[in-house]
């Protein structure tokens, strides 16, 4: 029998759920009882909704245990590790028998995430054993020219996974064509959309794939220096990147004369960003790397012509680079066989919001939104009604339920008014107020605006003020039209993507949910019963049993009433927190 292998998902998602404790517990028992199995850390396994996750691989197959705690792991060690008997009730996925979560895995195709949750990201050999660094070696061993590498990427149909969707191979070609003594490769790891964590998972789970992807790009365009611009809020990613870089240098994969090829110098360092959303914009990112305030500038000149330190520079995002070694190693066709005519390959999505199974999924392009939400994601929490999904984060837009058949590819999504973005999918149910949702995202972009352009700096502020007053029941006739007018002007007259897309959540919600805006403005009502200033909680005297639970739980003592008497909510005092509503067992609290 091969040695049993125990993997603990130790990406940020796992750690946040307590995976470190689980890991320590396993290690403690292992050492205490001198058990013979291989314990290893791995990255994000994907089922974030079941964290902490522990996978046990024995000679019968693989068993993934979910929602593990101290007690459960002890039981699993006792039974599965010691006696080889899987603890069925904790298993969330196995090849050996069916499981309710299996639909989460079906339809997924893992290319970018191929090693995430599989290998130990802090051990370079595990990456190598999984086929890592073979793509570079393939290029060197076969003397594949720069042009051919670029052509392979062009043929694969890979488009920028950071949101823009620009063909990666073409971008490389432009940088290749720029003549300069120095060129740069930058990996944009400044993932900033609320609800998006694809890049973090790749960096934490498979950092070498990014390093290899960058190395291939460096070869293709002739760069000698690489920079990974990673937000400082990703300490684990930065730590693992630095470990990976150090390992790669030791192996001769980074530095001078790399892979033994005389004169081929390429090195990478990690630049920590201070967490400004706008630094995800490539010109702002480069300004930040240069030590200046992260503010975008007008393009052209594009970075491929004049980028970092005014030298030709190629910038791709993490997921894009992670795909590159796979494509180079396996050929363009291995990638472009997936997807649609114009959107090839797979795309990683981060599922969040009112969805049952939140987490990271990688699917072939062209799958419908509905399939992602219902087949992979298991539908809506509490089986409430699906209302819309926000795609592309604050720069994106919402897609309503009746457009759920829309396939996920760049152009179909763009046609709805949303954008593919980096792959954040925030799912909303009937209790989500769409005006408030638009306000939330605009509040984000408004605060994250670098403050340079008039429209983005003041225009989004004014839009936010209008949205806020609508949510507070102070909306005026003409506000919707004013929002639209400002929105289009902001889109037309902003320097960078942040400003150009900031109004998208507002425009798409107005497009699909105009009636909700009108209800707020004209009837002073929030149809989703979410906007605090527009709702009231009252006691239904027919249902109230006078149990006093609501009064006891009210944080502001707004509810009065004797035991076994009908209670009363003082509207002057009520802060509309909804605690009474959720605590009442008799549905005696009315929300209107």
């Amino acid at each position, binding site marked *: 029998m091969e040695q049993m292998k125990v993997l603990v998902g130790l990406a940020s998602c796992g750690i946040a759920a307590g995976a470190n404790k689980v890991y320590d517990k396993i290690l403690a028992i292992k050492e205490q009882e001198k058990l013979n199995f291989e314990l290893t850390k791995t990255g994000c396994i994907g089922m974030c909704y079941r964290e902490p996750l522990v996978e046990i691989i024995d000679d019968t197959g693989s068993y993934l245990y979910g929602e593990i705690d101290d007690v459960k792991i002890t039981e699993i060690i006792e039974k599965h590790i010691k006696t080889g008997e899987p603890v069925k009730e904790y298993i969330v996925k196995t090849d050996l028998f069916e499981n309710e979560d299996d639909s989460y895995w079906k339809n997924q195709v893992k290319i970018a995430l191929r090693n995430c949750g599989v290998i130990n990201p802090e051990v370079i050999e595990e990456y190598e054993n999984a086929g890592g660094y073979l793509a570079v070696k393939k290029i060197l061993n076969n003397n594949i020219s720069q042009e051919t590498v670029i052509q392979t990427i062009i043929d694969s149909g890979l488009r920028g996974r950071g949101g823009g969707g620009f063909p990666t191979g073409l971008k490389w070609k432009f940088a290749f064509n720029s003549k300069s003594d120095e060129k740069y490769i930058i990996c944009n790891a400044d993932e900033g959309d609320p609800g998006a964590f694809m890049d973090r998972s790749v960096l934490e789970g498979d950092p070498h794939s990014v390093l290899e992807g960058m190395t291939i790009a460096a070869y293709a365009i002739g760069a000698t220096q690489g920079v990974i611009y990673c937000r400082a809020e990703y300490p684990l990613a930065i730590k693992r990147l630095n470990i990976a870089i150090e390992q790669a240098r030791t192996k001769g994969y980074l530095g001078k004369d790399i892979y033994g090829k005389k004169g081929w110098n390429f090195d990478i360092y990690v630049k920590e960003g201070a967490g400004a959303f706008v630094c995800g914009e490539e010109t702002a990112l480069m300004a930040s790397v240069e030590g200046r305030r992260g503010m975008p500038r007008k393009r052209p000149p594009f970075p491929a012509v004049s980028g970092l330190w005014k030298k030709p520079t190629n910038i791709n995002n993490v997921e894009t680079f992670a795909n590159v070694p796979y494509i180079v190693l396996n050929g363009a066709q291995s990638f472009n066989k997936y997807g649609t005519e114009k959107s090839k390959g797979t795309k990683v999505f981060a599922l969040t919001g009112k969805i049952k199974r939140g987490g990271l999924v990688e699917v072939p392009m062209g799958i419908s939104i509905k399939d992602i939400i219902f087949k992979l994601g298991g539908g809506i929490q509490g089986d409430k009604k699906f209302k819309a999904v926000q795609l592309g984060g604050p720069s994106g837009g919402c897609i309503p339920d009746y457009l759920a058949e829309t396939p996920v590819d760049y152009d179909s999504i763009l046609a709805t008014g949303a954008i593919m973005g980096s792959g954040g999918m925030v799912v909303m149910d009937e209790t989500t107020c769409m005006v408030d949702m638009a306000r939330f995202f605009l509040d984000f972009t408004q605060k994250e605006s670098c403050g340079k352009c008039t429209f983005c700096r003041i225009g989004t502020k004014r839009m936010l003020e209008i949205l806020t007053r609508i949510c507070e029941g102070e909306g005026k006739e003409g506000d919707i039209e004013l929002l639209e007018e400002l929105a289009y002007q902001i889109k037309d*007259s902003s320097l960078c993507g942040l400003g150009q897309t900031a109004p998208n959540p507002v425009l798409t919600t107005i497009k699909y949910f105009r009636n909700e805006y009108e209800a707020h403005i004209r009837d002073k009502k929030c149809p989703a019963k979410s906007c605090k200033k527009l709702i009231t909680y009252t006691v239904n005297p027919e249902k109230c049993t006078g149990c006093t639970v609501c009064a006891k739980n009210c944080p502001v003592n707004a509810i009065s009433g004797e035991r076994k008497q009908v209670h009363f909510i003082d509207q002057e005092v009520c802060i509309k927190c909804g605690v009474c509503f959720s605590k009442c067992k008799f549905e005696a609290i009315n929300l209107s």
Partner: protein
Amino acid sequence: MNQINVILNGKPVIGYDGESILELASRYGITIPTLCHDPRLEPYSSCYVCVVEIEGMRGLQPSCSTKINEGMKITTDNQKIYKARQTALNLLVSNHYADCVAPCKQTCPAGVDVQGYISLIEKGLYSEAVALIKEVNPLPAVCGRVCVRPCEVACRRNLMEEGAGVGIDYLKRFASDKDLESSERYRPIPKPASGKRVAIIGAGPGGLSAAWFLQLQGHYCDIYEANPKAGGWLRYGIPEYRLPNEIIDKEVNAILELGLSQIHYNKKLGENLSYKNLKDNYDAVILAIGSQGSTPIGCEGDDAFNVFGGVEFLRNMEITGQRYDFRGKTVAVIGGGNTAMDCCRTSIRCHADNVYVLYRRTEKEMPANPIEIHESKLEGVEYMFLTAPKRINKDQEGKVKSITCIKMELGEPDASGRRRPIPIEGSDFDIPVDYILAAIGQKTVAPFIDDINNFSENGKVSLNKWGDLDVNPKTLQTGNSKIFACGDAVKGPATVIEAIQQARRAALSCHQFLTGQEIKVEDYEFISKKDNFKKQVPEDYKTKYVSQKRHEMPTLPANKRLNFDEVELGYENDEVAVLEASRCFECGCVEYYTCDLKKHATAYQASQENLKGDFKQFDVKFDHPFIEIDNNKCILCARCVRICSEVVGAYALGLVNRGFDTFVAPSLGKSLLETECESCGMCISACPTAAISENVTFKPGPVRTEPINSICNYCSVGCELEYQVKKNFVWRVNGAFGHINQDSNICAKAKFGYNYINDKSRITHPMIKENGNWKNISFNEAFKIIYNKLKEKSTGEKALFAGARLSNEEMYLISKLYEIADGEKNLASFSYLGRGNAFAENSLKNVSFNEIPETKRIFILGTEINYEHPVVGYMVFNHQFKNNVPVVLITEDKNNSISKKADKTIVISSYYNFIKAANYYVVSNNLQNQIYLDQHYKESFYKYRDNILGSNYDELIKKAGVNSYDIEDFVKEYNNNHNSVIIFSEKNLDAETCSEIMNLAILTGKLGKSAAGIISLKEKNNSEGLFNMGIVEGTEKFNVISNYGEKKLLDKIKLRKISSWFIFGEDPVGTAINKIEINEWFDEAEFIMVQDYFMTETAQKANLILPASLPYETGGSFTNTQRQILEFEKALNPPFEYCNIGQFLSILHLAGINGMDSIDEVKSEFFKQFGNVGVNSNQLRITEESVNIKLFENAADYISNKFEKDFKSKLKKQIEYERV
């Protein structure tokens, strides 16, 4: 440059590769508005005001940063673009918590620029203040006495809660009275006569004002006045104790004096004047008839004898010239307005025993001016408030016996906002009175309407429902298209200032009518107001300003008022006026006339109400002595931030926070003084609003100033300046687009160093010292003395000195004066005295400044260039920023401020030895450019080589304080880079070092090449002129050196051989490094003559002083350190009879040296000598290490010296203050 074909607004045009749309459009005369773009800076694109549409591109593109492409189709203006620009401006102004104009001006019905004239009064420019007022109000002396002053109510000084706003009217009266007394009284010249004639009915304030404005447009006016004298209500309504007739006469005279008008007295329309006559003889008519009728009391018995309308009461006395005699009588005045005040105070003056004012509300509701109420009480008037007449009781003769009154109480507010008085039943009481004056109101009387309409051919004049003349309220045109109306007859009884405002409007409409234009209302003007954001409250001001009570105008003591003498006496003197003026907060913006935001917001009809929302409020920062930061006005174009980094290289400013919270602040949150700020003021020049402005020590107005272009008289770079001047006062200095400073950059010295021009202690007379005291003498006397002193024998020798700040023409004439001198002649400049003449060659083959952008490597030797010659520094560091060209600093001072900007700093201990070691290294390693040397320097090279190879290299290096590889690196970098340049300043180096630098440039074959070699910088604006004019000892004219290292004169001075000194524009004592020694030179002198602006330390030692004129008071030329002759015009007269040139020519004429009578003749005479410029005297010079015997700081110039000291001490003091 490649040409690019572009379609611009549908027309094919040619652009150039790399050109932006904005640049292209501006070349084709299309102005695209922009706020964030500054041609000196890299494109930025933040304001989005400059957007244009490009076919095939999504959205709109900022034209400042979009480069043109072949075939690009650009539209610079259409509805979409207009809308986008308008929205951008709406957004910007929606967060612009600032005032364009002060509340005083906003509130004044006539829009008088109060802040502007207060600024002029502060500077004693009274006639200029009156000129400003008279742009909109031709009766300032009248209004200065009787205006109801809504401005003072609106004045923000009230928010200090010290009692009263600024004494605006007092100041206006003070300036107006001063102007009326002045021999240079303001007398504008009307436009050429138009041939049009206007009849004006009524010579009151409205009619008179209309005549003023129409005459200025060149129209002839006949004023028809029903009364025997002019002034209308001013004369016949307002009593003389408030407004003396003499003042009315003077201002009427000023109006008639324009020469295109005449008043015809005792002519009343409809009685002895018919419209038939007017229609036939005039092109237009203005009705300014006033409100002539009194409103009756309207109670039983108001027809009694001795019941008068207040208006009639006042008018009768003026017409008859008789005063009523109220001795022993009781007078009741009914009403609470200003007419009531005039009636009651006049009654007192008519000796009434008792004067009561009956008013149906309380004192608080009285419409009368509070000062009037106050004064009337002082004079003995008694008030009966909440009292209304119910019935007038007559005696048997029908005369007034008593008045029955009823008490009132106040109810709910009525339409006027005041609480309505309600009678209290049964509260009747009687007051025995002898006279009743009803000052309740007036009404328009227009019996001539039928007369007009009978003869009218252009429509009819009619009355409205209030009985006033019916007019278009905006244009003041009546139903008859050629008749306009203004004043009380239109508005109902109102104020003088409203009548004046209406007269101006009616005159404008009339003018438009007369000239066949459309009669239209004024164009839109965007005005930003703090009140649009929030109501101003005391807390906004009390913490920021020091309390200072109003200086009240002195008045006659109450016991001296039983006459009609003027009660208010006017401010005592200038100092009091300046003190009161200092209370002005200057609420209006200093950039009112120049603000780009206002300009574009006006053009695009932007409004602060449109996209109202949250806004940012900041405290204005005054902590820097020269630079004021008002973030409220900032639109975040970041031009200040960028110019400070891209051009100055100081990086003193930055952007803080994100999004809507972003603001500009000194770097790292410090005070500007604690940053790397160089106090150059470039940020001010970049700001499109007034967010960064000059922190001036005077009231800046704003006022409209005149630009005077001249050449800077500080350093030798030769920047062209634009002085903004009014009268002789310099308001500010901007960079002009000069020959040298082509992008208008200037430095701190030019920007902030102009206060000496405004200094009132300037010398304005020739003076002679008698018994230790100065006595003014005439110029002719002074000239004679100087001529005699030059000519006569003296105990010792004579010496003439010319300063490095003087013009070429002045220097040339001084060298001529030297010809008069008898005996051994000595001509020199203290600025180079004892320093040798080898400097003469420094500037002969300089790299031109405009080749700096083509250099590939720059070495700065010693000079703190951004402080000593900043504009060249800007060129260097802008080049470094844009093109990454390395800048190397070589310095003896390890604290040299340039080292922060340089890419590399080499600290050495001796410039001379460093350069000499470099030269040794070149020659000993055979690195010299032999071909070049053989062509140009064959002879001197071999001598030089032999000499330098005889030096001890190790010793040179040791003395230089460097390692041999430093020398090696330096030589390689300088020699091997084709376009490398060494920049050095004479200030820091001695002549021997300069010669060795020249030698290095020669050895490496760089001297005289384009963008390679050296740039030498001289200390003063015309230091080079001293060499050109042969003033420096040992030089002939045009830099021909007669004897190297000449120091004869210094030796003579030290031996006390000089007994007569003629010093022009230099202050050797005040600038002496060793003051004791220099003082001794002059102590035993027989005669010292000094010509300067101020009483310098040297001037104090003189026997005779001549006043010196400023460059722009003379005209002439300076030769900058690049040997470019920079000419400047005479723009103003000096405040004395003879400018410098005139003074020199007069003395020369005494000596019979003629042939030059003007500056042009002087110029042409010395230009003739250009032909004599000798052969190139350049050669490799063998040098010896010398001790620097620099004797004077700042090139012996008083102004430069003073600036350096003041500048540093102000910055230092301020920092210390901050720390406390």
